[in-house]
């Protein structure tokens, strides 16, 4: 794995994660992360759109006039979203009904147009594709993490409704973590998504801070710098 791929992986999954660093695409993130399956479904759909749009944008990057690039990117994205929507309509109809308006709304997910504009339109196809894959994976991971937290807190289960995504055999996948008569409805309701995302971002910042502190301590030990002028800034 070359350095560029390594950097792209790190950027997509952690340093520049669309959901918890760029804070893009929060509308679907907050709306459909009620269960793991919903989150996974939307995450995969977004990843596929991101992959397709990044590849296409990268392919046409040299022939698109700079002045009208944004409408063209939007049309490319919209086409891929339509494809995904029709595919979901055909093969995972249950999930298609659950996710509803949030599938077409992938078009407006700023993470996708953001990657098209910031990365895919300036880099070759293989890098653009890998970037799309990593950004999409990063988005999906956060969605699934949030979905799992909310589902455990609110319903006490994991993977409920897996048959919507994977077919009838998957209905056995549902794990009952605990059983209760009084579900913690707040976790399932929208405020739960905001609180959950806040905690995930806070955890990420804490981890970053700890890493930073450690590396700084190391640096202090290693770097012995003698100041020779008073003016270097």
């Amino acid at each position, binding site marked *: 794995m070359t350095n560029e791929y390594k950097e792209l992986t790190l950027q997509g999954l952690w340093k520049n994660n669309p959901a918890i660093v760029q804070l893009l695409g929060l509308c679907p993130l907050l709306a459909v992360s009620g269960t793991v399956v919903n989150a996974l479904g939307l995450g995969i759909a977004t990843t596929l759109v991101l992959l397709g749009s990044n590849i296409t944008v990268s392919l046409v990057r040299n022939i698109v006039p700079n002045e009208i690039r944004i409408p063209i990117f939007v049309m490319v994205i919209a086409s891929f979203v339509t494809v995904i929507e029709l595919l979901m309509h055909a093969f995972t109809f249950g999930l298609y009904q659950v996710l509803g308006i949030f599938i077409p709304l992938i078009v407006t997910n700023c993470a996708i147009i953001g990657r098209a504009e910031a990365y895919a339109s300036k880099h070759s196809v293989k890098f653009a594709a890998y970037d799309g894959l990593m950004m999409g994976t990063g988005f999906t991971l956060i969605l699934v993490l949030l979905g799992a937290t909310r589902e455990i807190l609110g319903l006490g289960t994991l993977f409920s409704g897996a048959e919507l995504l994977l077919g009838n055999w998957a209905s056995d996948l549902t794990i009952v973590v605990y059983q209760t008569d*009084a579900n*913690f*409805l*707040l*976790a399932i*309701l929208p*405020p739960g998504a905001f*609180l959950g995302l806040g905690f995930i971002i806070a955890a990420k910042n804490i981890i970053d801070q700890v890493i930073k502190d450690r590396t700084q301590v190391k640096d202090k030990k290693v770097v012995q710098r003698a100041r020779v002028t008073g003016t270097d800034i």
Partner: protein
Amino acid sequence: MTKLQVASSPHHHNQRDTGAVMRLVVYAAIPGIAVQTYMFGYGVLVQLALAVVTAVVTEVVILEIRKKNTERAVKDYSALLCGLLLAISIPPLAPWWIIVIGTFFSIAIVKQLYGGLGFNLFNPAMAGYVMLLISFPVQMTAWLPPVSLTIQNVGIWDTIHTIFTGYTATGFSIAQLQATVDGATMATPLDHIKTALSEGYIISEGLNNKIFNASMGVGWAPVSFAYLIGGLVLIKAKVINWHIPASMIIAAMAVSAVLSIYDMSTHASPWFHLVNGSLIVGAFFIATDPVSASTTNRGRIVFGALIGFWIIVIRTWGGYPDAIAFAVVLMNLAVPLIDYYTKPGTYGHQNKVRNMAKPSPAKKSQQGDK
């Protein structure tokens, strides 16, 4: 420990610190709590104990994690007061984990995550109450009728047993305790009227029930009046200003008066709205929270009036029977805006010259000298 205290102006000497103010509020709530215990049983006291313990423990733990001065924060009694307000708001026989989760949420998330006392945007007790109400609607609306109307005599042991196991020592569930002699479940006054209206009855028919005594809810109105006494003491002691309670109650009365003049049969009278539910507790003890309420006197009038307005609107058209918590939390959001437009003129300048600078980020934690 004697230490020179250097404070910023005004150098007005005031004997009251935050702790003294909070303690006075707690003392003022005692008559209300006593009457509430008399009317609704020992559950009130058990919930109070659970809430206070949870609140103080949560506060200490979070402050330790945040590496703050634990002792000072606990001695300001704000966590205790928050637990108290939450405990008197929930049904006396609610399961123990309701009050524990609610108090933890109030202190840890609504108060400490926003930066602790003086920095919280929302009234912690009411935000905790809203969280509980939308998360656990069944447990949060299971109010027992006042003691004088129940058929099962719930003693102190039964109360503790019910709070921790869901059943009394003799095996009655809360639903059975709610039932009266004729088997009908008794709801709170506001709940009862709401249900009656939805079933097509008019107000006067709804009031014709043994839970009402001349449109005052049996057990509920005395509790309100006891809190009113405590609230008036607070105003007399200059712990709270009259602006918020007065404007809140007047606005609620005015809105309900307009509605009931418009249609007597489907809108309850102002008097009904005043004595039933928690309007008075809310006006004197909850909306006056020094941190999350407006800080200017004109702002307090606007703040209180809009809370009063929302209470009647939500009681009339909302999905939940009472609305103090929703109204207070909603108006907490509007406080920065209200403060911005009601900023008093600088002394010596004409009032209409509004300084267009950003509102000063003055800390609101010291409220002893309002």
